[in-house]
């Protein structure tokens, strides 16, 4: 995956246009190798059945379940409602490098589910699903990415975070984004504790 340092290098190659070293959005969606120019139509949240471009229907079910385990519905909608699985499908279908690790990660998860509970991953109880993902997540938090499944979890978590927090549900409804408005004047900070 592209680290921020890689992104800065790329910027170095094209010349820094401005004083904005942190504007480097290394979103997965940006790593594209299109055969066709990207569509410029706004993304619509999932409505009706979605036909995945890369994943099989079963794989897509699994991806959707993982995404919703990472960012579940709470008092605001979760990853699935925010269209994250569709975003992940978009990213993977536009970038070959993710195809194999994604497919193998899903396979590994199925294998574990079968081995331990004789069921498909999506058929497990939520606690059982969490139990399977937790060691991967812990390893990633320790910055340990030795195995393919650890790297798989890191990728799918990052893609879920990217997709969710750049969606209207994630950015506006969940985080409360308030910018991009027209203000007559800038409200001065008048909190006595900030002075």
């Amino acid at each position, binding site marked *: 995956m592209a680290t*921020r*340092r890689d992104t*800065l290098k790329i910027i*170095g190659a*094209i*010349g*820094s*246009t*401005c*004083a*904005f*070293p*942190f*504007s480097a*959005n290394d*979103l997965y*969606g*940006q790593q*594209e190798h299109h055969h066709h120019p*990207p569509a*410029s*139509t*706004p*993304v619509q949240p999932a409505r009706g059945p979605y036909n995945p471009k890369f994943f099989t229907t079963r794989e897509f079910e699994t991806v959707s379940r993982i995404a919703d*385990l*990472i*960012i*579940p519905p*709470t008092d605001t909608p979760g990853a699935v409602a925010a269209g994250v699985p569709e975003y992940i499908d*978009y*990213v993977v279908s536009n970038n070959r490098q993710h195809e194999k690790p994604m497919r193998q990660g899903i396979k590994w998860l199925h294998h574990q589910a079968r081995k331990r509970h004789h069921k498909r991953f999506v058929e497990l109880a939520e606690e059982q699903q*969490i139990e399977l993902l937790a060691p991967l*997540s812990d390893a990633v*938090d320790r910055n340990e990415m030795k195995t393919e499944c650890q790297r798989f979890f890191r990728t799918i*978590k990052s893609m879920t*975070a*990217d997709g*969710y*927090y*750049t969606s*209207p549900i*994630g950015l506006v409804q*969940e*985080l*409360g*984004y*308030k*910018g*991009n*408005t*027209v*203000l*007559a004047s*800038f*409200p*001065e*900070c008048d*909190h006595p504790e*900030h*002075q």
Partner: protein
Amino acid sequence: MSKQVYDVLIVGSGAAGGTLAAHLAAKGVDVGVIEGGPKIDTRTAFNTHSMPFDFPNRHIPTMRPGVSGFESERSRGLGGKTMTWNAVAWRLSHRDFKGRSIDGAGEDWPIDYSDLAPYYDQIEREVGVCGNLDHLEDLPDGIFLPPVPMKCSDMIVRRGARKLGVKVIHVRKATRSIASPLRPACHFCGNCMAGCDVVAKYNSYDVHMLPALKTGHLDLFPNSVVREVMVSSENRATGVRYVNRETRAEGEVRGRSVVVACACVQSVALLMMSKSQRYPTGLANSSGELGRNFIPHFTGGVEVFLKDLMAQPTTDDEGFLDHAYVPSFMHTRKRDFARSFGVQFGYQNRRSVGWARSMPGFGKAYKQSVKDRYPAFLVFSPYGEMLPNKQSFIDLDLNKLDAYGLPMARRHVAWGENDRKIFREMTRWSRDILEAAGAEFQNVDNEPATNHELGGCRMGIDSRTSVVNADCRTHDVPNLYVVDGSVFPSASEKNPTHTIMALAARVADYIVETLRKGEM
């Protein structure tokens, strides 16, 4: 194309080219401006008010669908980088001009603050710079519009900095804080660097060139990627050859004098591409210094969450991006390095939440931890001054051609001992200030990154060690000038554009004077 011979032909239409063109045209000089990119309408061309979810890959591209521009460094568009800059506008100080005399390292400018001060005045009147009068020895005050109020996060950082005896001031930007008859005040929509659609923020096309067109003394040649500056057998620049951006057809424009103003690295590249028998290693390179003394700014970066803002309601604070600044303070303190650094901070916008990936865990607790930190996220970016060294230079990669068949420019940067010391010190100070302000640390950069490209056509008195003289005229060719960041002999830690514009205004006066005397 016009067969006319212009008094002055300017390659590049950004901060330097646009300013110079307007100043010359206003004085009746016939000017042609050659720009590689297309004409860009800042009101409709950019995705100023877009959100990431407007695009399937969630990345907001520079141009709107179907609008061309900003394709490469050689074909951005009329206005150049001023279309997408962050508008930070500092005056350099006496210390910046005379660094070598003061701390014995790097190079002095052949001019001093007093030479440029009247031109800083002019530029501030023309472009509208907002800021506060801070009475700092190292950051001269100017003619300012009222400053924009600080954000909550700025006040919190200021409270921390104060504990360490460090000042936080209002940022100074070429963005109107109050309206003028021609330009509205900033409306705080928050995406300054995606092009300002109302021209509250200065850009050289709308503010300088567009009014200058009315004089009848200015012609614009967009879509013309210059490949060579032509020089006569009498050693005089006679014009430029270009490739049409769309048709790839070749063309020529002639001028009685030529100004290269295509932004640091590309100015060096153009001179290097303009080889001849007399100048086998590049035009105006008899010193061998062309491309050398490349001294871009280096930045660090500390990303934090301010504890006071954690789990607080979000506010609408992206407008105008950064509102405050930590001006250089080390130059008056005991230190074991030359030069200094300043800190820009709080210019992250709130449409990107890339750090969410690195919050630990998953599930409800993870979702909550992102939500709690969202209003508290702050980026702190110190900028340090690099000293010139032999390993840092610009050259051409003759094996790599761009879309126009021209060799790509290549940057070589190696950090010297002094640069490393500044980097360490500026990172340490950033941590300390934020610690004092109350912060949870998310990321601390441990390697410098470059920004604000400067140097390559050093200005100096000695023609053996510099490319242009104090008036930005090349030592080698009497009617050839270079005006942009490439002429900076030393970089200062301050954002360079204001100084580039002031230099352009000064060169305009010099050229007018020369024309009057009939020297050209």
